[in-house]
């Protein structure tokens, strides 16, 4: 497999910028094609996938826990005055639940996951590339793409939905904390309102799109790291550009997936 690699220019002119852009597009296309070609072929490297899921999940857990709790808390605090103006403070749990389940939970978790994990994968594989560890695997007749890339991308794709569900639950608790500070509302009432507000059609599309976001985080980080060159500076570039590209793609795909969801479930609109 030959993956087109973007050449680095310190101060690129317009032509070089265009060439670099299209080289990245073609490179990432080949990379995706290679992933889907290899993902169903043995060896399956289950132990590596489990190891990466453990590592990525544990590493990201503290930051998403804090973020999830704060999202719910702040959202409830911000929404309360607006709902109060319309005399609709009873709808506060519904507002928090729907916002978090449909959009904020999945997207913010994915963006944090991209910042934490995509850069990590980019730096790790980039470092392995520039120190010839990937070449060493290849000359030992071991498929580095399968061992390093496929396992990581599967791990990110599987772990992000789990983290998202966890963030959604924590955000609900954060929201409840804000509610009991401002409103005299029991946990039972809050819980029933949340459960009543969130339908199957709200929850499934929200969580389902995080499989796509998880895939983006993994594949972008792996692509940038696997194709890194230029020594330690190249590793730094791989790490930084992984986060930027993954975050951008998450937002673009979110827009597309929201539109697709509304077409498939028009009642959500």
């Amino acid at each position, binding site marked *: 497999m030959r993956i087109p690699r973007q050449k680095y220019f310190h101060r690129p002119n317009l032509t070089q910028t265009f060439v670099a852009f299209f080289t990245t597009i073609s490179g990432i296309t080949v990379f995706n094609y290679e992933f889907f070609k290899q993902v169903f072929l043995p060896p399956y490297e289950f132990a590596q996938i489990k190891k990466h899921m453990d590592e990525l999940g544990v590493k990201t857990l503290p930051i998403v826990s804090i973020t999830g709790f704060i999202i719910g808390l702040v959202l409830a605090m911000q929404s309360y005055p607006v709902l109060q103006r319309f005399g609709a403070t009873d709808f506060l749990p519904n507002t928090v639940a729907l916002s978090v389940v449909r959009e904020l939970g999945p997207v913010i978790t994915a963006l944090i996951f991209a910042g934490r994990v995509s850069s990590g994968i980019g730096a790790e594989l980039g470092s*392995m590339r520039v120190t010839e*560890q990937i070449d060493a695997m290849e000359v*030992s*007749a*071991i498929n580095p793409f399968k061992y390093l890339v496929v396992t990581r991308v599967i791990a990110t794709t599987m772990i992000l939905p789990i983290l998202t569900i966890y963030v959604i639950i924590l955000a609900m608790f954060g929201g409840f904390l804000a509610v009991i500070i401002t409103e005299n509302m029991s946990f039972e009432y809050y819980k029933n309102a949340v459960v009543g507000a969130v339908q199957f059609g709200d929850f499934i599309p929200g969580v389902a799109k995080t499989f796509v976001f998880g895939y983006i985080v993994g594949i972008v980080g792996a692509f940038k790291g696997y194709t890194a060159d230029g020594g330690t500076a190249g590793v730094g570039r791989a790490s930084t550009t992984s986060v930027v590209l993954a975050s951008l793609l998450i937002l673009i795909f979110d827009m597309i997936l929201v539109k697709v969801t509304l077409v498939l479930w028009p009642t959500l609109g």
Partner: protein
Amino acid sequence: MADTWLVKINNVSKAFDDFKVLDDISVTIQKGENLVVFGQSGTGKSVLLKCIIGLLSPDIGEIFIKDKNVTKLNTKELNEVRKNIGFLFQSAALYDSMTVRENLEFPLRKHTTMTQKELDEKVFNTLELVSLENAIDKMPSELSGGMRKRVGLARSIITDPELMLYDEPTTGLDPITTKEISDLIISLQRKLNMTSIVVTHDLICAKIIADRAIFLRNGKIAFEGQIDDLTKSTDPFLINFFSDEIIKQ
């Protein structure tokens, strides 16, 4: 000798953009022979090794290892050939997230069905060959440059390859460690009866290892023969090259 070659390189050329690194290189390496490839930095020595192992494809020419033309093989066939080749990288290229033990076990786990006991024994015996059995549970970051080279060497030979490729095995090492590594390479070669291609510009290393040497200059073979003939060549460029080497020593 006609039937005893292991590697045959026929008219190989390789260019990067407009820069021709290898230009019509042809050389044959006999079984059990140690060939040293000399040349200045950037003259295509490492590129030649990478073409032999299939990390790079030559633009023109053929490379045979036994009866297999590595330039025409698919990945699966190439991997079968690679199982019989060891490659020592200039930086040793140890997997830095694994211990020394795991580095050595890794190729065996992927290509054999050895039990843990057999793996332990094989790893220990191989580390003993390079006198590093005490470093078995260390991380690569805890090792010195010379130790890393030895572990890299141990990892390369653990699958009992027929052919060993060394990419500047003594670069960055002091003269005493250089001699130790070179002695180790030659003793392993004799013990395990391997064929070796060694890329270097280190005369101490070459004098210990070489059965035969080639000198690459401007992508072409400028000299082919015995190491003593090379160092005594009357070619002004070679005189200058080796006088510099001697000053360094």
